């Protein structure tokens, strides 16, 4: 029995091993299949083949890729190139499973222009670990408040430029009590609300972090991300974080009726569909929304746009006194990597250089409805006729804002001892705050209730800071090397 089993195991391993072919003229690219679709990679693959006769490119688009990549890297696979989010690449790189890219980054893709020059500089620092580059950043994501431009136009609402404008707009929309379905005659017919969101409350981060950066300035994050001591969490020096959350609380949590009913408990797709069906004027979301919902957008109801983050009153200003536009890079962890065991590393590197050409960059953006590659777009000429209004609004924000991100390769962060987005454990507070105010007593008599029951938002950060301070050295000692 044992012998039979061992033989069977040996045979099956042999079969698996013999399945990898190493054809020097074939390139296999595997991409995460999500909101971007796969038209972009298929187009680029064909273009690469056209420029390199004799080369064939196979594409695998797989929504489950992220969780499978560690196995493929460790055990070897036919893949030469991965495009994915959620890869724990630092962990894999340090074990030697990822091909370093220092060499190809120094190669020229055009006279006088190296590959490394084309990478978006604010994201370049997210690509190296222990002094070596192991990946190319994939996308330069944009998030914030998406709004229904048609609904705004029909009702004479203006896109808010400041936070105060946004607060006033939310009041206006809520008080207008416009029926979602004009033919609905029931007394409690649904009316349009300013906001709809879902139990995946982190979508609000895309707006709230912009406010944080407006107040602290984007340079603040350079030190913050190094996570060298617990002082970075001190609310006395890091005021932007709690003030941004306070602003959110005043806008959303303290006005439970401004959000579609039970947003806090909704499935995220139900929230997006509510938005598409005209139940709300705005939804916190990011650049993939249009592509994801493309088959269900009804132009009679919806014209999707992303609005630039409204300015907080105390936002940092430039020399001329104008508030500085900032935008949080969504998906700064998305990666393009080459496995150490890839059959055709040279060809994969050639593809990376190809990807950095202006034509490729333009193709990507045009075929993903406005998503930007993590590249420098200064020299890119996008064919406007291929872009939707939504795409144009995203590109406009990306090109005119100071971009920042919260990616860190401090070991404290990589091991999950503490989180940068929402210290200490990266659990958002939106639901707690919303549920705190969503009660009958507050709704019937706000002022009286607030006297004793106002939630001290700053306190969240004080307690969190103290907790982190107390545990910092213990957590550090728990990390091996």
């Amino acid at each position, binding site marked *: *029995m*044992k012998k039979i*089993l061992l033989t069977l195991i040996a045979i099956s391993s042999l079969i698996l091993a013999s399945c990898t072919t190493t054809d020097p003229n074939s390139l296999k690219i595997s991409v995460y299949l999500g909101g971007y679709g796969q038209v972009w990679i298929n187009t680029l693959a064909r273009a690469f083949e056209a420029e390199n006769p004799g080369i064939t490119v196979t594409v695998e688009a797989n929504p489950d890729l992220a*969780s499978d990549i*560690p196995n493929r890297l460790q055990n070897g696979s036919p893949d030469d190139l991965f495009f994915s989010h*959620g890869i*724990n690449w630092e*962990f*894999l790189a*340090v*074990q*030697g499973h990822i091909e370093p890219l220092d060499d190809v980054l120094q190669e020229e893709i055009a006279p006088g222009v190296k590959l490394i020059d084309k990478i978006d500089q604010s994201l370049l620092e997210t690509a190296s670990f222990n002094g070596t580059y192991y990946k190319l950043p994939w996308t330069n994501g944009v998030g914030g408040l998406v709004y229904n431009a048609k609904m705004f136009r029909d009702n004479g609402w203006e896109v808010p430029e400041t936070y105060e404008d946004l607060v006033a707009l939310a009041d206006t929309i809520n008080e207008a009590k416009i029926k979602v379905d004009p033919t609905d005659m029931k007394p*409690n017919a*649904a009316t349009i609300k300013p906001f709809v969101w879902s*139990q*995946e*409350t*982190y979508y609000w981060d895309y707006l709230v972090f912009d406010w944080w950066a407006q107040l602290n300035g984007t340079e603040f994050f350079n030190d913050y991300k190094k996570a060298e001591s617990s002082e970075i969490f001190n609310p006395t020096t890091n005021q932007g974080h709690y003030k941004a959350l306070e602003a959110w609380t005043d806008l959303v949590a303290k006005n439970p009726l401004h959000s*579609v*009913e*039970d*947003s*806090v*408990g*909704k*499935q995220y797709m*139900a929230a997006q569909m*509510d938005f598409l069906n005209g*139940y709300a004027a705005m939804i916190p979301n990011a650049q993939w929304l249009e592509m994801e919902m493309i088959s269900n957008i009804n132009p009679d109801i919806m014209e999707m746009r992303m609005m630039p983050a409204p300015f907080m009153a105390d936002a940092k200003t430039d020399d001329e006194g104008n508030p500085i536009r900032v935008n949080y890079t969504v998906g700064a962890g998305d990666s393009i990597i080459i496995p150490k065991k890839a059959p055709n590393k040279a060809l994969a590197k050639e593809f990376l250089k190809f990807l950095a050409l202006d034509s490729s960059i333009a193709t990507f953006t045009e075929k993903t409805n406005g998503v930007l590659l993590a590249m420098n777009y200064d020299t890119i000429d996008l064919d406007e006729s291929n872009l939707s209004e939504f795409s144009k609004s995203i590109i406009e924000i990306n090109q005119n804002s100071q971009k920042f991100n919260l990616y860190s390769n401090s*070991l404290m962060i*990589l*091991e*999950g001892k503490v989180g940068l987005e929402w210290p200490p*454990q990266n*659990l958002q507070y939106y*639901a707690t705050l*919303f*549920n705190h105010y*969503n*009660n*009958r007593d507050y*709704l*019937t008599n706000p002022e009286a209730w607030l006297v004793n029951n106002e939630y001290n938002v700053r306190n969240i950060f004080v307690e969190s800071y103290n907790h982190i301070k107390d*545990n910092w050295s*213990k957590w550090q000692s*728990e*990390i*091996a*090397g």
Partner: protein
Amino acid sequence: MEKSIEVKKKRILKKKTKQRIFIILMLAYPVLQFLLFFGYVNFDTITLTFQKFSWTEGRYVYSGFDNYIMFFDRIFNDPWTRRTIINSLLYMPINSLVILPLSMAFSYFLFKKVPFSGFFRVVYFLPSILPIVVMTMAFSFTFDSNLGPVNDIYKWFFGMFDSNVIVPSWFGSYPTKQMMIFVYGIWVGLGFNIILMTAAITRIPEELMEYGQLEGIGFFREFTTVVIPLIWPTVVTTFILGMTSVFTALLQPLFLTPTSGDTNTIALAIYNSVLQNQNIAYMATFGIILSIFGLPIILLTRNTLNKFFTEVEY
């Protein structure tokens, strides 16, 4: 004479050898698979609990009892660890003290030929054969504020007493969302247990049941004095199996509250760490320690419960 004894001995020896070969052949694969997938895996896991990933060396290195120390530190200092464990522990009373008694009562009445018993049995068993993805999706849609009927019914019903009725956020606030997960567990879990109990009840000999009928005892007495003692072994088994859900509850919170940290369970935490390739050695330690604590409790429970009604052979 001696020759026949010799021959007999040889025959017996041959028979015993054949028997041994038979035993070995029958047990070879099961034991091998067991040694590999239980023995070796557990040994490997325990080895892992004494290791940590070193970022400078790029591999796991020996770290002594560090993971164990970290576990006890987290138990005392980290509210989220405690919440995870408490959530997991709560599955036990839900299974063994709610679902089990309810299913016993249901089975009893189905046995008593409540009208349409056959139909009910089929319907109640449905959740056990349908994909869990489908069940959880059906369940969450029912409670959506726009898609599902519950909120409208709630507002209509309670609106009669209170014009400012506010519908609770079923999946948006803690502890409501955890309770909804338990409600889901009861909703789908009754059926399977009902079938087990029904099978046990139907094996009770008629004479014993009729004896009760002739004495003129009512439902309650018949149930408590006749039925329960006679199906007790089945009850104990199901009770114990329900306790194991403390360690295995994973899919309900995963599908019903996908991004929630406050409905975390032991199994879900471990599953997530494997999927994200993070903190694997610590999570292995977490699981092992909790299993070690759980074992004596389960054994004790089983032994205590078994003492209640001495087994009757029939």
